[in-house]
């Protein structure tokens, strides 16, 4: 369970950014989370609350946008969204696919701040 250390990194990043902007209050942190990032959404949400305790972000929300696995199909010559990460095959032509375009994201994209 590495979600707690990831949540702590998120809180740290948000705190730094808030300080950088003159000590603004953070209402929410927006995160992109890919299905191939190896991070469990529910565990991260729970960990986030724990990580916020006693920090300036206590009471803030973590808003997670889940990113599907998008791969490049060498046969269709285009991006395709996987039906399941248990099967790396093009959903249309069933060719095996290995080039991942999206799905590994673990990125803080925005902060909802109060000035």
């Amino acid at each position, binding site marked *: 369970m590495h979600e707690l250390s990831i949540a702590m*990194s998120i809180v740290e990043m948000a705190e730094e950014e808030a300080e950088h902007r003159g000590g603004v209050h953070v209402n929410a942190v927006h995160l992109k989370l890919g299905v191939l990032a190896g991070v469990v959404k529910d565990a991260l949400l729970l960990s986030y609350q724990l990580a916020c305790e006693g920090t300036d972000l206590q009471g803030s929300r973590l808003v997670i946008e889940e990113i599907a696995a998008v791969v490049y199909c060498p046969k269709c010559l285009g991006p395709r969204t996987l039906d399941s990460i248990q099967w790396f095959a093009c959903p249309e032509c069933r060719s095996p696919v290995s080039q*991942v375009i999206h799905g590994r994201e673990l990125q803080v994209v925005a902060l*909802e701040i109060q*000035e």
Partner: protein
Amino acid sequence: MSAQTRLVEVRQNVLKQNDIVARELRQQFHDAAVYVVSLVSSPGSGKTAFLEKTLTLLRSNYRVAALVGDLATENDAARLARSLVPVRQITTGTLCHLEAAMVRTALEGWKLDQLDFLFIENVGNLVCPASYDVGEDLRVVLLSVTEGEDKPLKYPTIFNTADVAVLTKMDLAEAVEFDSAAAACNIQRVRPGMTLLKVSSKNGAGMDDWLRYLAHGRHAYPPRLLSHLA
């Protein structure tokens, strides 16, 4: 959203710090021309036995060393020390995976340019190590025949981030009625095209293929950067 609140763009990778250190490590490894192989698997899959055998066999032709991650004990390092190559333990405490900074600290004082191979044994865990680049050139995922054929489907992310899969404890395959073909099929589903090797650390079967694979990887130096971590 009230009048005083607004959204500001940040766009920062959460694991940025780890990625930066991993990139620096990889550069350092390339400069020293040491081929770095990491091993990931669930606990009890035979990583340490496999590594001990590998180190012992490689030792006669190459200069090798190993780092081994474990939550609490130093038992693995003690076992690996029997292979008579330099071994260091990284005790992670409560942390379930190795991070690049831990590897960097553990390497202090070692002359990397005097090594041909460096092995990094991750903490036994099929989830968390998937997210952390430790600067390796080759990531090996191990699956023992006693774990069942469907492990790759249960942990697709770690299998997908690995470069090669090794089936271990093949000497037990018959006894546990392990279906090699099904395991291979499941591995290909989550990582099409991945090389699959079968070994027994106990009786040495398959170790020749594994050593050839390693030697080939090293001789093709500098190795390709891991595309999934770019």
